[in-house]
């Protein structure tokens, strides 16, 4: 059944693409990003996607869901806008990133004629029903938890590492948290003392201050959805800035944007790498006429050690030259001069 569906899809895709090429029209691509286009994370993925696609004349129309700043109603509206664009414009391919776009948009087009390629997805492929779709494939984001712990130990050797993990209520972290738990279950040298999920920025502050001296390091995963007294969410830069100024604990994350904003270290998942791999998948679909169902979803394996030397200095942590030379080092805070 699935094979037949894939076959029909391939024939339809071929006809559409062939007609486009015969007419000499550039390919049309819709990019639905979960967050805003001014965020480096989104910019990196789109840049990588363009590199992997290798078609400078392709027309890419971008729809921002901006999930970090919009409430549920606003998010639904943004998703409706994206769906309408897809249905009306009939692009040759849709490129989505991060989990929000999958949950709000991609799931609406399962087994449609339009191929979908994603990147930066933390949940599993099957969690969105893509395992039953013949038109969806993409790049799964897999954080380098073990590598990050190793980097942490290189900076400060601790035999039995005590951790606290901070999350917000974004469903993105469900997959991340489950994978961390699975990794911790295999290890005896790491102990998560506490999983924090504060609702407000103030709660975050108080919980963080309470952690001082109780744990060796704090994992900062979800820091986007802490409400502020006046309404809205505290900007994650503000959260991280406060943390750098007030926390004496080592902290870590998995994204370069965090280290740029004061988190001590991360073995980052590269947005550019994910976007580049997704672009190559799109090229195979559009140029080589390979069905998305024939391209299994992949996870980027390459991680880049990243260290905030400014934060290390603030924490009074000497770092060996070998660690610094093997990592991307940020000697200053993003808010610095």
């Amino acid at each position, binding site marked *: 059944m699935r094979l037949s569906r894939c076959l029909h899809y391939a024939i339809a895709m071929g006809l559409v693409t062939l007609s486009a090429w015969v007419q000499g029209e550039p390919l049309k691509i819709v990019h639905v990003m979960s967050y805003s286009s001014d965020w480096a994370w989104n910019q990196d993925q789109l840049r990588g996607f363009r590199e992997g696609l290798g078609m400078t004349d392709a027309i890419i129309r971008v729809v921002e869901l901006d999930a970090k700043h919009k409430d549920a109603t606003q998010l639904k509206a943004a998703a409706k806008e994206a769906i309408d664009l897809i249905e009306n414009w009939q692009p040759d391919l849709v490129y989505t990133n991060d989990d929000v776009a999958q949950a709000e948009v991609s799931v609406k087009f399962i087994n449609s004629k339009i191929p979908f390629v994603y990147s930066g997805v933390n949940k599993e492929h099957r969690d969105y029903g893509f395992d039953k779709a013949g038109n969806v494939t993409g790049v799964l984001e897999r954080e380098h938890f073990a590598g990050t712990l190793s980097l942490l130990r290189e900076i400060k050797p601790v035999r039995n590492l005590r951790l606290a993990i901070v999350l917000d209520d974004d469903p993105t972290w469900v997959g991340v948290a489950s994978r961390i738990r699975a990794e911790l279950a295999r290890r005896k040298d790491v102990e998560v003392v506490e999983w924090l999920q504060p609702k407000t920025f103030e709660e975050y502050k108080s919980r963080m201050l309470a952690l001082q001296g109780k744990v060796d390091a704090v994992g900062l995963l979800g820091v986007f959805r802490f409400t502020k007294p006046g309404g809205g969410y505290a900007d994650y830069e503000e959260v991280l800035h406060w943390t750098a100024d007030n926390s004496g604990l080592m902290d870590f994350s998995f994204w370069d944007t965090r280290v740029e904003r004061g988190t001590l270290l991360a073995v980052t998942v590269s947005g550019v790498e994910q976007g580049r791999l997704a672009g190559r998948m799109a090229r195979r679909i559009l140029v080589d006429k390979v069905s998305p169902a024939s391209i299994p979803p992949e996870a980027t394996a390459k991680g880049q050690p990243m260290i905030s*030397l400014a934060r290390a200095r603030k924490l009074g942590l*000497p*770092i*060996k*030259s*070998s660690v*610094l*030379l093997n990592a991307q*080092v940020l*000697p*200053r805070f993003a808010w610095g001069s």
Partner: protein
Amino acid sequence: MSVSLPLRINLISLIFAALVASVLTALGGFFLHHQERDNAIARATLAADELATRASRLIAFDMGFADFLGFDEQCAAVIRNDPMLRDAALFDTHGAQQYHSGSGTIIWPEYAQLPEADDTQTVTTPSGILVLNPVVRGKGEVLGFAVVAINDAVVMEATLRNVGWLVACAAALFVAGLIIQQGIFWRAVGRPLASLVRTADSIQPDKLVEIPHLPDLDSNDDIGRLYRAFSRLVQRLLEARRDLLTQNEQLEHAVQERTTELERVNADLAHDIERRKELEEELRKLASTDPLTGLANRAFMMPYLERRIEQARRHRTPLGLILLDFDGFKHINDTYGHAVGDGVLQTMGLRLQQICRQSDVLARLGGDEFLISFEGLQEQYQADALCRRVVSLFATPIEIGDLKLQLGVSVGAALFPNNGDDLTSLMAAADIAMYAIKQRGGGFLFATSSAKIPAANDALAHSLRRPRSTDQ
């Protein structure tokens, strides 16, 4: 031990080649050392550049040299897995060593011209060859130097290893060349010479007939000409040898004939010698023997008796003589002829021999006169018995054919030294006794005393010494 010519040529060429190879190897070693040294400097330059880059990266993090933590590991990392690099270090601009890794020490080149920001300097110091690369901040501020020292021992070892390989390859080529050259020389020189030697050795004195034929050699070089000259020499030698063999054969034949002739002459000569010995023996016998009776004659008997008398005198042993003369023999001779007379003499000679003992000697002195010398008879009565047996012999008639003849005998006996102390006196005593008994008609008579032969009787004495042919 002799060495073959091809091998000798080969060894000589090998020696010259080895000399040339030694010079080339020395030159090659010199250049290889420079090459290895340059190679090490190039590696050191890269390592120093890498070390300087790492230091510059850390400096770019707003870190000073003093902030580098564990930078010794970086020094070690840039020279790790490269045995040609001995030490790596980071110096500040004042020449103070900040970080170091390696098996030796690096002495700061005080008086060396230090490199500029984008330059690299190679200096030779007591601690070895150093490569200096500046550690730069920004676009030209030199904060220090990354220094890498070359391991001279390893450079030399690498050089020697390469030289060793060079020598090994050269030796292998030499051996291969030697084998090939030996093969060529063997074909060109050794084999023809060996053939010549075998042919020469086969020409032995006991093998004069067969001389092996030399195989043909087409070469026109010296060896070929020598080979053919020897071949012609062998042919001429073969021909000369055939002539010599023919002459030898003829000579041998002549020698054989001559030898046969000599053997025949020798045999004749031996026969003549034998015959002469026989004749001499016969003459000797004739001189001492009476030809008619085969008894000793006077010529033998007289010297014999003188010797016996001398022995008897010396040893004081008894000795006697019996002198006998036939009575009536002249009559027989005149009546029946000399042949019968000779037969009578032979018969009586045999009879006398039969009564004589082993030690007695019987002789016919002449005519019918006989003499018996006897020894060992001390007393006269013992000699009397012998005389009686002599006389009794004549009692039996003598048969000559149909004749039966009767003879008488007169026997005179004398004893030494009683009847004479020498031959003459003894013979005279016996003769006198015989003559006396003959006067009485026959029989025997012993001499009574020593014979005194008066001067008037000189004729008698003389007669005793000469043979008497008749019985008167």
